């Protein structure tokens, strides 16, 4: 399964002095749904446009199906793009928009008619062929853009925030449709989004980018549960982050650390003594008890409890002012606001992230961590 269809090797992109994609290394597998996720301006669109051929990388290599593409114009690449603004041709009917790619490839008229019908029915737009883009709703335009791209049987479909302009409800519905379409077609989707929920629910793998750097690439579960950088831990979902240094390793293999807020414990001893690390604990793994727990000295006061459906989100303010989020299942006993609590967790639930300051060590450690994750799974 894991055969690469797009390979990005050591790619950099500068706009003038502005370094927008930095040493990007990424493999995109055949038939996968890969999301590129990151905050605004982190280089997602630029990366996509380099694959499509609208931008030329400053250096590095991009291959599609094993072939280097730097000297290929967009019209020579076997990839198609669904643009964020849809870019439908306003002077052509839906039918002519969808038929455009085939017409350019000089496919016979009779065949075009049939394939346009198929493509339109695939996006559930039968009977819309005679309309003009201006006569369609946003969601319908979106579908035309998708039909126009997939009719060319691309090996890779690039989608740049294709649902960005749609309202919440339509977005959810289109997410499901897109995912089904991808499974049905069996082609690779590279899907740019800055909506993490969207990325987590739709993707086989997620590439998280920040400031032009690929922070982490992995399955949604890996990204969520084993973030390898502070950015990913912070960006994906909610988390409680502590900056800490190792104190000592206990006999049971757990590590005792010192943070500004107090003493805490984790389970991953793979870092050098005195190295600065980040420790990330998800709110649902964070516990608040009435009495102190060994290995922890995080005392705080409950500020508030918010009921959100089936969970209760509590905020506990530690003595140094840090706010800790604790979520518990509704129905379980909830600490009263204003009461004192001791924060702790199961040491195995804390993810230890190596700080970026020590890059070479960081790299070695993250390799180790990969092996560790694989071994543990």
């Amino acid at each position, binding site marked *: 399964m894991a055969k690469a269809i797009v390979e990005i090797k050591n790619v950099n992109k500068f706009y003038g002095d502005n370094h927008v994609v930095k040493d990007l290394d990424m493999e995109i597998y055949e038939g996968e749904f890969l999301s590129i996720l990151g905050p605004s301006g982190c280089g997602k669109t630029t990366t996509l446009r380099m694959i*499509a*051929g*609208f931008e030329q990388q400053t250096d590095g290599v991009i291959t599609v199906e094993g072939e280097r593409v730097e000297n290929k*114009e*967009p*019209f020579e690449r076997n990839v*198609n*793009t669904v*643009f964020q*603004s849809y*870019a*439908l*041709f*306003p*002077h052509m009917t839906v039918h002519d928009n969808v038929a*455009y*790619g085939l017409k*350019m*490839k000089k496919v016979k008229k009779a065949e075009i008619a049939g394939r346009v019908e198929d493509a339109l029915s695939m996006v559930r737009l039968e009977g819309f062929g005679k309309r003009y883009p201006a006569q369609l709703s946003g969601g319908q335009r979106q579908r035309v853009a998708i039909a*126009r*791209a997939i009719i*060319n049987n691309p090996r890779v479909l690039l989608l740049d925030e294709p649902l960005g302009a749609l309202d919440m409800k339509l977005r959810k519905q289109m997410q499901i449709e897109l995912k089904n379409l991808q499974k049905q077609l069996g082609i690779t989707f590279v899907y740019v989004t800055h909506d993490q929920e969207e990325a987590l629910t739709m993707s086989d793998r997620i590439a998280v980018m920040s400031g032009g750097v690929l922070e982490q690439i992995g399955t949604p579960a890996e990204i969520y549960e084993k973030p390898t950088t502070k950015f990913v831990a912070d960006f994906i979902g909610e988390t409680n982050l502590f900056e800490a240094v190792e104190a000592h390793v206990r006999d049971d293999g757990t590590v005792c650390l010192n943070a500004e807020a107090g003493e805490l414990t984790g389970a991953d001893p793979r870092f050098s003594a005195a190295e600065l690390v980040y420790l990330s604990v998800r709110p649902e793994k964070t516990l608040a008890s009435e009495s102190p727990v060994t290995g922890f000295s995080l005392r705080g006061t409950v500020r508030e409890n918010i009921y959100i459906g089936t969970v209760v989100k509590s905020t506990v303010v530690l003595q140094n002012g840090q706010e800790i989020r604790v979520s518990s299942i509704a129905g379980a006993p909830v600490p009263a606001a204003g009461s004192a609590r001791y924060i702790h967790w199961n040491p195995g639930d804390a993810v230890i992230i190596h700080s970026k300051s020590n890059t070479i060590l960081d790299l070695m450690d993250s390799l180790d961590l990969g092996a560790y994750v694989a071994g543990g799974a």
Partner: protein
Amino acid sequence: MQDRHTFRKKTVPLITMISPVTAWLILLIALPLLYILVISFCGTDDAHNIVFHFTLKNYAKLFDPTILSIYSNSLVIALLTTVICILVAYPFAYIMASTTPFRKTLMMIFLMLPFWTNSIIRLYSWRTLLGTNGYVNLLLLKIGLIQQPIEMLFTRGAVVLGMVYTLLPFMVLPLHTVIDKLDGGLHEASSDLGAKPVKTFLHITLPLTAPGIFAGSIMVFIPCLGYFFVSNLMGGGTSQLIGNVISRQFKEAFNWPYGAALAIMLILITLLLVRIYTKTGGKIDDLGVM
């Protein structure tokens, strides 16, 4: 209820606002036009005075073969001018729309600069360039390309050149407006779908900028029929346009009724062209004149 509301809200202020303009239009345009229309049905006495009795003889004279050939000559020159203007203005407008703001301003200034001098004076400078003793001939003689000076002035080509030179900005401006509005994403989409640049131009750029070509053509073609001074200066007596005949009736032959009939005919042709333009989807606003 609704009607009265919109009447008070929209129509009443509109009338008060428009009335001075309307008065202006009636005084300076409608009344003279009406006068022209009336005298086109009149005759003249021996002293060239207008005699007010109804006749169609001025219109009958329009179908005189010499007049018809002048009409066709005018149309040919206007057509040539329009085509050349499109070919020159399109790349110019395209570059202007895609270059840096600074260069765009520069191009705009060069385009508009000649308008700050009288067009007759500018056409005279062409005469110094193109005349038998003009600089172009002198240069060609000097480098030995020709032995005899070429007759460049006083040809149909010179008239077309003068027209193109005078009217080019009217083609560039509407073209620039539509090209500037083009969504670059459409070109990328076209390329993404496998179209080479030429195909993208033919299937996307050209149809989407057609309204500009159309508007520019109207703006060039119509004045071309009437710019008699260009034909006078650049064509000498060789190339007669409708405008020349009309101006001669008023200034030399003193047959105002006949001149009026010729003018009415020209107005009808113009209206017909504008009608075709709006019928095929062109917008009066795009012409930038009203």
